């Protein structure tokens, strides 16, 4: 088990290093002087800052040396300075990270739970009206762009019905504490989390349904039935457990999409996470901040992939950890 974990962590570190190198070349892909690009539009008019950047990143030195300086900087969590926001990039991201984690993890939990639930129902009642209804809904949600779902949610639940707040993390100026604050945040969280979750819920529903129908036909299920186990026990212990394997794999694959969806969701709902930060960086063409968020997003995806890999091994009855 331990050697497996070290192996995966090591692999993750290598991939992360490769992403940092990619980042380094991305900055140089932009038209113009990298120092000016890093400084952003505002910094371009400030020769002192540009000169500072040039010295700090050794931009007059040969490329491999520049790369080394850059990688060293990132390794010590120095993602550079955002001239626009007048703050270190790492600090800006650190402040915003909890909100993004809250949003993505809630959305992930909602989508996984509802997806597996609906998928199980659809498979259980395959061929009936319920199955068709669930399948059609899943197809439609799967085809809706996230930003549009978000806006339709606002239109329906904020503008028309006035049930939920349409933007922000908490009620501004309310200064709530304790439980009241938690309830307030939860109210603000419902719509963004549902928006982000719906698309993934549709995927998990489809996957669970297909996978359960496939597992149902396998020999060990027949054996279980022959042993005289009740239908409910077979469904839960034998079919569902095995059917969940591809769903877990899918969850890992989708973690990158989840982060991408968070950028859109946070933008629409003004949710103060790193996705919104990315959008702000985009609007201001603050490339340093943009690439900093990109590196952190990639790191988050790597960590999430590692976790799903571990979960897969825990769920899969066939895989034992090599000791």
């Amino acid at each position, binding site marked *: 088990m331990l050697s497996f974990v070290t192996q995966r962590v090591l692999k993750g570190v290598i991939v992360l290093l490769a992403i940092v190198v990619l980042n380094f070349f991305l900055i140089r*892909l932009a038209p113009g002087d990298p120092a000016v690009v890093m400084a952003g539009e505002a910094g371009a008019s400030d020769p002192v800052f540009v000169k500072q950047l040039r010295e700090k990143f050794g931009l007059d030195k040969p490329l491999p040396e520049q790369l080394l300086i850059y990688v060293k900087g990132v390794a010590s969590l120095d993602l550079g300075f955002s001239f626009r926001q007048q703050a270190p990039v790492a600090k800006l991201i650190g402040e915003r990270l909890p909100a993004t984690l809250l949003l993505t993890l809630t959305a992930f939990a909602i989508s996984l739970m509802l997806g597996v639930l609906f998928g199980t129902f659809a498979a259980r009642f395959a061929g009936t009206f319920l199955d068709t209804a669930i399948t059609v809904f899943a197809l439609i949600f799967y085809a809706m762009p996230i930003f549009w779902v978000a806006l339709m949610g606002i239109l329906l639940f904020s503008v028309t019905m006035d049930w939920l707040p349409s933007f922000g993390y908490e009620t501004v100026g309310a200064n709530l504490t304790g439980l009241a604050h938690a309830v307030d945040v939860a109210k603000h969280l419902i719509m963004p989390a549902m928006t982000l979750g719906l698309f993934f819920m549709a995927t998990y529903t489809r996957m669970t349904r297909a996978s359960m*129908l496939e597992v149902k036909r396998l020999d060990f299920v027949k054996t279980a039935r022959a042993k005289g186990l009740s239908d409910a026990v077979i469904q839960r212990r034998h079919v569902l457990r095995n059917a969940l394997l591809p769903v877990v794999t899918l969850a890992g694959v989708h973690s990158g999409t989840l982060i991408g969806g968070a950028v859109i969701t946070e933008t629409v709902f003004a949710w103060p996470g790193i996705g919104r930060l990315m959008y702000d960086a*985009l609007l201001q063409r603050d490339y340093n901040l943009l690439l900093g968020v990109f590196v952190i997003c*990639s790191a988050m995806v790597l960590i999430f992939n590692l976790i799903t890999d571990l979960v897969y091994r825990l769920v899969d009855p066939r895989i034992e950890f090599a000791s």
Partner: protein
Amino acid sequence: MKQFWKSMLRSPSGVIGLIILVLAISIAVFGPMLFPNSPWRMVQRPFLPPFTLSTVPLGTDALGRDVFAGMIFGARVSLLVGLVSTLVALVVGVPIGAMAGYFGGKTDDALMRFTEFFQTIPSFALAIVLVAILQPSIYSIVASIAVVSWPPVARLVRGEVLSLRTREYVQAAIVTGQSNTWIILREILPNALSPVIVLASLMVATAILLESSLAFLGLGDPNLISWGYMVGAGRTVIRQAWWITVFPGVAILISVLGLNLIGEGLNDALNPRLSREGR
């Protein structure tokens, strides 16, 4: 071929998908001929609600531009970007997958690590960064969508080639001394085509979603009107004018749905064994 159409037309999702796609393509091709004026032009007073004037059936946006005309022109951009970026992704992914599967060993290892690397990077975030750095234009949008969507193609093709490579007819071609290129192109790839076609139809759908999301964030080609741009532009006035955001979104939904249905229909038609096992 006849067999293919027969089974395609037997699957309800395939038929609905085909109808939607044919409609969307005809709108994209012929629609702009019916609307000779630029969709950027002001035609009526701003915020004209839909269904009030027959000349502007879906109303106007905050600058008095015809929402319906915008949707017609937007169809062109969405479908074009979806198709072209998928083609580019295939042009990148198929050779990489084919080489990895055919040559195996170190080539396979290196190419697959490379593919996995691209698959780990959060795709939408990478697309945003690429378009922002290359400056938004139809070319940078197509390029970045292709960059983030080729890995699944490479992996799929590799798997197919890997299993086809051991077949007798391929072994026979190797023994008779055909060149590797000839074997890959003439013997192996044609037989690996059907799963690739299914994947490609789904990729067009994803590409349309990606393009609209980029345009929504303000990373669309500034000279071309697109559905995502329209929703993004209508977002700030959603309280006064719901129709500016609702209609283009419905257009995206319907075309993506149509392509997904076609993907399902194709899957049923091309892999009949899989579909009979019940999905």
